């Protein structure tokens, strides 16, 4: 911070010093500084544009959701019915669906991602690190709709034939695995979400681990720690806030993900703890019903969007506050949520 501030100061200094020099040599003359000011404000206006635009659009969204807000008020959030015939709309089943699938994504995706990050940062031979990191980042480049297509035809049969029966046998006594394996359910959606958050969580965690000073690893190694013990003792503990932030970032991604979930979750507007039952998330509800909805239902869908907006905003602001400096590691290759 200090360095940046002083850099700024130095530049301004150079600017004023230059103005004097220019009188003798430069043909541009004193107008230059006015031009520079204009340039600065023009660029600033552009930067301001997006900021203002998005907040303006949020207001417009609130306006669009007005009918629904007026009709259902606070009860919208806890309403568990979504019935276009009776014109009754509530957000609860979808908030529930979003939170449950996102939790699954975190539960499955985070350990995998941290494992990937540990391998890339601590164990991988140097020549393998770059290509492997690239492959993991490419995972973020695949468009979400292609994940959905693949899940429908390649992942679903595996879920129905192998994974879901296995979990049903082992954990069938818990409320999480009641019902018959159908493959288009919260379980499949959770798995596909887990796969999709790996590049984000792994890249940011890797960045956090690689930022751990070598001296910390040396401290552990010199005590006679093995590679694994060094990672646990010196690297993971030191980088824990970065890794935590990476998980929150992954959570944000899981919460907002639309297409792959829409295509795998089975689209049923019900609240059920069983992962083998179909469900609906906030985003999948919007994507599924957009074409047909009008009037109050459209308004209610937009209100769902506002709820999603608020949740995503909280999660992302939280993540940004924690990871700040590792944020640049998020693969921008990201393909279509």
């Amino acid at each position: 911070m200090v360095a940046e501030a002083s850099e700024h100061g130095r530049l301004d200094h150079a600017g004023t010093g230059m103005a004097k020099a220019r009188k003798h040599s430069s043909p541009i003359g004193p107008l230059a500084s006015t031009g520079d000011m204009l340039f600065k404000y023009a660029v600033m206006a552009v930067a301001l544009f997006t900021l203002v635009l998005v907040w303006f659009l949020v207001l417009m969204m609130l306006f669009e959701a007005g009918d629904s807000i007026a009709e259902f008020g606070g009860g919208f959030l806890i309403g568990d019915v979504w019935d276009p015939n009776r014109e009754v709309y509530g957000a609860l089943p979808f908030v529930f669906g979003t939170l449950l699938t996102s939790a699954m994504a975190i539960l499955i995706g985070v350990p995998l991602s941290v494992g990937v990050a540990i391998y890339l940062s601590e164990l991988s031979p140097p020549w393998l690190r770059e290509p492997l990191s690239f492959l993991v980042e490419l995972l973020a480049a695949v468009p979400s709709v292609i994940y959905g297509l693949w899940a429908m035809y390649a992942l679903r049969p595996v879920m129905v034939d192998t994974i879901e029966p296995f979990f049903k046998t082992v954990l069938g006594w818990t409320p999480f695995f009641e019902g018959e394996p159908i493959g288009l359910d919260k379980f499949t959606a959770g798995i596909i979400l887990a796969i999709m958050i790996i590049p984000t969580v792994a890249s940011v965690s890797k960045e956090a681990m690689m930022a751990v000073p070598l001296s910390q690893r040396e401290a552990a190694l010199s005590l006679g720690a093995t590679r694994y013990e060094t990672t646990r003792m010196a690297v993971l503990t030191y980088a824990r806030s970065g890794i935590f932030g990476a998980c929150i970032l992954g959570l944000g991604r899981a919460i907002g993900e639309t297409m792959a979930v829409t295509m795998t979750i089975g689209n049923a507007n019900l609240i059920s703890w069983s992962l083998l039952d179909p469900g609906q998330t906030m985003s999948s509800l919007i994507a599924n019903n957009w074409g047909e909805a009008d009037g109050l239902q459209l308004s209610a869908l937009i209100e769902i969007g506002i709820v999603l907006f608020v949740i995503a905003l909280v999660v992302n602001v939280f993540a940004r506050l924690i990871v700040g400096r590792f944020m640049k590691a998020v693969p921008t290759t990201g393909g279509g949520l």
Partner: protein
Amino acid sequence: MADKIVTEGLNAYFGDVRAVKNVDLRIPERAITAVIGPSGCGKSTLIRCMNRMHEVVRGARVEGRVLLDGKDIYSATTDAVEVRTRVGMVFQKPNPFPTMSVYDNVVAGLRLNGERDWNKLDATAERSLKLAALWDEVKGQLDASGVSLSGGQQQRLCIARALAVEPEVLLLDEPCSALDPIATAKIEDLLFDLKDRYTIVIVTHNMQQAARISNFTAFMYLGELIEFDATKKIFENPERELTEKYITGRFG
């Protein structure tokens, strides 16, 4: 006096750069050996070869033999992890684990070995902190974070941490370069007390320090071992002209 560590034809590389060249050195047991020389002469690299820490750096490799009690630590049957439990190390900048308390820092090495007996851990922590002359200063704040201590205290904490594993050899890589004179004096006193029990090798760029505390001194220049002898001999009557030039400050 027996030799604790013997290097034979030791070469150490960073990529293509040879940082240590054909060093044959005998480190005597239960004494302090200082390694001096201008910066970049390979003295740190040399001692990092003695507990296989050199290979931790990417692209680094070692040729030749390093015998610990007559057994080559680079032989195929020797494990680097085991070597490091016998040969402890303290680094230039204090590096306590910031997420651990003072107490946990000290017993970190023991815990690795699966020690769970709290009485034993407590006893070791106290003994190590006392050996490192830190006990009186931190006994009231064992739960505080390791990085809440002053720089000098942190470095002694790192020494205590290294001692807790009960190594036979203690390697110190310019342990005082980041410390003020008072903290430096404390560490020097401490090393002086430790030499009856441990074999100590200390790298220093401070010739006075070497003269003050060491029994033997090795002088290195451009990766080569120029001269090794009793400290008194090196400082008062060196064999080589290069050594004398360096000692008397008429260098380069």
